[in-house]
């Protein structure tokens, strides 16, 4: 990838002849879009504005800007792995116009001042929405000042990376967040069950001699959290769903009218536990890569809407930390720069999801859950992703804009790529 270029938002932009996919307005047609001073001023067939810069996007798609609701930016604390700026550039390169960053930085984002710090470090390439911690220091002992953080701009709360073990505290968090109508994003993991596990529990873990993490470690806590959402009327969002049992719990909770939403990540519908054979630490993630049957269930759950969103859980790690023995490597992989292409290749090209459904999972639903403005309509802020479905490319981590390189998809052939984004009117050519 070459370096992105960015134009100032005062430009008038005329997007000409793109196929506009907007599931919110049931739109799938070839249209022109006019953007002036950062806002959409016109949508229609063959529009004209002599003063605008015309960009011919015939054969390309226009999506509402993609939103990744689960990203780790590592700033403050581990700026060697990622910063708010480098993560934002990586997001832009992957076609995202908004990202929500998790609070498990050093220090943990658990106060108004730290939320403001994140906001102050934003760059025009991507909107960054902080997620605040559920508990002070994410220690699971006392609620953080959620209201104060909400006023500073958080879009949800989470102790991501750590489960809220204390059920009563989780109940209080869900109850308290009703006042602000923000979700509690739950990292579902029973730490007693996952213990020292390094991969999915089962015959393969037995064979490889790696300690296993059972599906129940995730599902047991997901079950608890939907029950607490039912009890309180609060909104729970289940992060990085990896297994069939959790899908079943979410499906039943949704049928019962409980306010539960869920996300999964590309690794959970593209890779299975067999990728761990060979002990490549790039494959170490939490939750772990699951069985092929789980992978099929995740795909079904994407199709039937049980899983609302595709997030990345973008987790940058330095190569010296990741290039070690499998069970000593930190969990996590990058996602921002590969997610859209991987999803297109594995879901749309294989007719698992329609283009419109993919846009729902990657743009519409995450924006709805986090209450981020993100629609293609007159007077709305212009946040758009322009996507070339025919572009073929190979994942080359040395060209990533992220500061880290930890992807298991190195060398993968991908079809489909974002070619530009528009963020509050800024045109970013990728």
């Amino acid at each position: 990838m070459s370096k992105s270029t960015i134009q100032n938002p005062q430009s008038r932009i005329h997007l000409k002849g793109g196929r506009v996919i907007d599931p919110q307005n049931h739109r799938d047609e070839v249209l022109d879009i006019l953007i002036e001073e950062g806002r959409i001023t016109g949508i229609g067939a063959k529009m004209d504005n002599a003063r605008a810069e015309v960009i011919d996007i015939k054969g390309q798609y226009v999506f509402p800007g993609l939103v990744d609701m689960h990203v780790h930016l590592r700033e403050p604390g581990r700026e060697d792995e990622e910063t708010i700026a480098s993560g934002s550039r990586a997001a832009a390169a992957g076609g995202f116009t908004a990202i929500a960053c998790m609070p498990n930085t050093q220090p943990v984002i658990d106060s108004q001042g730290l939320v403001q710090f994140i906001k102050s470090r934003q760059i025009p390439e991507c909107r960054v929405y902080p997620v605040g911690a559920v508990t002070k220091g994410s220690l699971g002992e006392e609620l953080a000042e959620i209201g104060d953080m909400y006023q500073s701009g958080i879009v949800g709360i989470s102790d991501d990376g750590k489960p809220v073990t204390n059920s009563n505290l989780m109940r209080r968090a869900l109850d308290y967040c009703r006042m602000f109508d923000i979700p509690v994003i739950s990292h579902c993991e029973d730490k007693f069950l996952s213990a020292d596990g390094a991969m999915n529990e089962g015959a393969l873990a037995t064979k490889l001699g790696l300690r296993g993490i059972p599906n129940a470690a995730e599902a047991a806590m997901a079950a608890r959290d939907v029950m607490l959402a039912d009890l309180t009327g609060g909104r729970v969002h289940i992060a990085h769903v990896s297994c069939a049992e959790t899908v079943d719990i979410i499906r039943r909770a949704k049928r019962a009218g409980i306010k539960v939403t869920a996300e999964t990540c590309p690794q959970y519908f593209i890779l299975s536990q067999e990728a761990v054979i060979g002990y490549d630490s790039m494959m170490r993630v939490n939750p772990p890569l699951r069985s092929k049957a789980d992978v099929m269930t995740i795909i079904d759950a994407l199709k039937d809407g049980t899983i609302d969103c595709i997030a990345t859980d973008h987790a940058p790690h330095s190569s010296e930390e990741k290039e070690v023995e499998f069970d000593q490597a930190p969990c996590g992989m990058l996602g921002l720069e590969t997610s859209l292409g991987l999803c297109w290749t594995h879901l749309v090209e294989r007719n698992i999801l329609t283009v419109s459904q993919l846009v729902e999972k990657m743009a519409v639903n995450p924006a709805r859950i986090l209450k981020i403005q993100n629609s293609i309509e007159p007077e709305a802020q212009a946040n758009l992703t322009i996507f070339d479905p025919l572009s073929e490319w190979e994942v080359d981590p040395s060209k990533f804009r992220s500061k880290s390189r930890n992807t298991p998809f190195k060398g993968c052939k991908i079809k489909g790529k974002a070619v530009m984004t528009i963020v509050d009117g800024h045109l970013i050519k990728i």
Partner: protein
Amino acid sequence: MKWNKKDLLDLESLSAEEMNMILDTAKSFREVLNRPIKKVPILRGKTIVNMFFEPSTRTSASFDMAAKRLMADTVNISPKTSAVQKGETLLDTARNLEAMKIDLVVMRHSSSGAPHFLASRIKAGVINAGDGQHAHPTQGLLDMFTIKEKRGGFEGLKVLIVGDVTHSRVARSNINGLLKLGAQVSVCGPSTLIPIGIEQLGVKVYYNLDEAIPQADVINVLRLQLERQKKGLLPSLREYSLHFCLDKERMAKAKGDVTIMHPGPMNRGIEIDPDVADGERSVILDQVTNGVAVRMAVLYLLSGGDAPLAEAIKKEA
């Protein structure tokens, strides 16, 4: 047949032919161990690094002795004496050693897959001397060597592995090797120490030792790591001993010619009674002797030994 593998990482990746090649080569070296001068100069000029990142007495001594009896130069590294103490990564340690032009690395490590990690990143051959709870191929081979020596072969032989199978790399290597050579393998232990999905490796599972013993031709007793009780996997060592200790009473239920094995070190009175460990059916000390011969064979083959062994020994002597 020519040996063509750079590394010995596990028995799963070896064919039956390759395992038999190691066992046959070990037989020649076993004879060398009976000579008054127990040395052959066939690895003279080769340098072997023993990297033991976990405590070990018999395996590290056995490898060191095997190398010395082939007259290779050896360097022994332990975590306490290595730069790992200073924060150096495993990979950097190995790359630095490799820059000193070594031929083979023998490695023990607490992380499953650590030798695989190293083998794919350095040019020197890597021999797994035990990784986490994954594999201990030379222990598996020396067990098979001992079984072949005592029982004549493997076809149809019934081998029972008793104890903490979950955490045992010895058990996994035994299972992989023995099944491939035609033996039938069963495991027996408390259900908390039998790993999920072990049946899928092709073994039968018993939870009652008294039921399992009568069918066995060979019983391989595993060491119970005493910290398992603290981790909640066992109610007490006393209870474990009551249900799973191979004692005289249980031996009465075994076949008259049963072979008793143990990879060591033993917890006498917990998994095996002294009467049995030191009894006439025990081949535990033979395993230790055979271990040197098997490791000589492995070092020889991985160092490029491709001429018929007897000829090689004669030529170099």
